[in-house]
């Protein structure tokens, strides 16, 4: 058959053409774009270091973070205590390391939790539309319209205070942004032709939602997740300022900074508030840089 011949012939040049031209995968392009942004790379390295500090805290820390030395309080940095001691004579450096664990644990779990809820609700609203969408979005409206601070205070009073509560509270009231974001993505993706194509193939709804649409919405979700990690660290610090953060004696950067927010300490032991403050600053900055780099890396447009 004539047509057949043609198709067979057609192959050759393309083969030559496409095989010599080693294709680039999406991931590779993304990674390359990410590495092009020097700030994000810097941010990434910083995060790795901070996470490393948190993970290896028991091996790095020279002291037990809860060990008090009441005769040596608010000591300035020295050979024994690199970053000095706090108002109960505990080693600030060790506490910073353990504080990293708590701060990162809270932010990672809270972010994972809120993104999961946000994705599921946003995806359902966006994909099914109509009544489902209206109901879920009104629900989101209600939650968003609540003053966060009120919710935080009352929830912290209702539930047992502590790490778990804090995480739950963050999750319960912070998923709404993600839900809106994901809904928007789903709304625009659900009528894209590749989704329609998947439907004509007779694929199951759940598969279409989570295997076809979700991966395409992943970019913005990951970006917002990195940014939220920084946000949660800051929120925890803010709550600590109001006295509602992580319970002592567990150290977190937030409650360390809060404990140092004393006029006397600020003037006479100025180094003490600097360190937790810097850790928060650097870490949040790093996450923001990474998020920013990811935003560009996931941006399909080539710049």
């Amino acid at each position: 058959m004539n047509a057949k011949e043609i198709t067979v012939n057609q192959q050759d040049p393309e083969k030559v053409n496409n095989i010599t031209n080693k294709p680039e995968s999406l991931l590779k392009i993304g990674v390359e774009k990410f590495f092009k942004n020097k700030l994000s790379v810097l941010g990434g390295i910083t995060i790795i270091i901070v996470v490393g500090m948190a993970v290896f805290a028991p091996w790095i820390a020279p002291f037990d973070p809860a060990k008090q030395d009441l005769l040596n309080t608010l000591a300035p940095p020295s050979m024994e205590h690199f970053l000095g001691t706090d108002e109960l004579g505990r080693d600030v450096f060790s506490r910073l390391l353990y504080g990293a664990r708590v701060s990162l644990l809270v932010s990672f779990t809270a972010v994972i939790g809120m993104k999961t809820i946000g994705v599921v609700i946003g995806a359902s609203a966006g994909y099914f539309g109509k009544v489902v969408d209206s109901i879920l979005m009104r629900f989101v409206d209600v939650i968003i319209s609540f003053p966060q601070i009120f919710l935080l205070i009352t929830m912290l009073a209702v539930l047992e205070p502590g790490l778990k509560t804090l995480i739950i509270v963050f999750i319960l009231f912070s998923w709404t942004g993600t839900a809106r974001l994901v809904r928007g993505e789903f709304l625009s993706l659900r009528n894209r032709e590749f989704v329609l194509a998947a439907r004509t193939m007779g694929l199951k709804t759940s598969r279409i939602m989570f295997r076809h649409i979700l991966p395409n919405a992943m970019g913005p979700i990951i970006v917002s997740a990195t940014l939220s990690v920084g946000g949660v660290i800051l929120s925890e610090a803010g709550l600590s300022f109001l006295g509602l953060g992580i319970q002592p004696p567990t150290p977190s950067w937030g409650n360390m900074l809060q404990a140092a927010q004393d006029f006397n300490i600020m003037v006479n032991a100025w180094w003490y508030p600097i360190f937790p403050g810097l850790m928060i600053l650097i870490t949040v900055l790093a996450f923001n840089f990474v998020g920013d780099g990811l935003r560009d890396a996931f941006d399909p447009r080539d710049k």
Partner: protein
Amino acid sequence: MITYIIRRCLLTIPVLVGISMVSFGIVQLAPGEPTALFIDPEISAEDREAYLEHYGLNDPIPVQYVKWMGQILQGNLGYSLINQGMTVQEMILARLPNTLLLMIVSAIIAFAIAIPIGVYSATKPYTLKDYTFTTFSFLGVATPNFWIGLLAVTFLSVQFGWFPTGGVATLNEPFSIFDRLHHLILPAVVLGTSDMASLTRYSRTSMLDVLDQDYIRTARAKGFKQGKVVYKHGLRNGLIPVITMTGLMLPNFIGGSVIIEKVFNWPGIGLLFIDATFQRDYPLIMGLVMVSALLVVVGNLLADILYAIFDPRIEY
């Protein structure tokens, strides 16, 4: 447009009712009650009972809710339990203007700094200048609010005496705009910096997007210089997503202002909220919840309206 606004407002009623129900529930769930405050002077059991009975705090929650709703429908937010003899309305109204002022000014500051930086970064992406501005704006978002606030008070106000240490106006002095602004600057700047970064990023991304559009090329082809292309043809389009963002940012402003209010001794509703919650002043809490929910709703509405003004493709 007007019918649209009216319809929008009507639509918020169910949302507000939902909010009121949920928050009523949450408020009552919290352990403790207003009399907990009286613990120190050894309030007697009878006094406490009489108190709870008198204010209806012993009723089942649904009954309390219905009573409260009844009051609302009569346009009355009730009386504060703590500041006896004061209505919730007057307590909120005494503070609301301060919060609004702070929010608006800090938003203006955030916009005034963020948008030019975002636009500039977008015209020179991935250059040293872009990176510098990025870092600068991120610094704002990455520093804990209260930390900068306290540092600012300690150094700028106390040590150098450049700014007042707090409050909305100098005591015992006649009203003057300058004085008010002088008090406003530090809190507004500190509050503004935290939103500046995200605004900068949004306007940068949005402008990058816009500058890639065909109509920008058209504008160039018309022979316009860079400045006119960017500001006349680019900026208005680039602002549209930024405006939507602003509407969504409003709840953050209310939440974020609590800390600023505390640090700068700014008598706004954030602090009142904290006090009311800590003291379990139920009517006041509910009033505040409703007011701030309303603010959020109004903010979103405003964003929609601005959206329509900026984007002729949207028609109501």
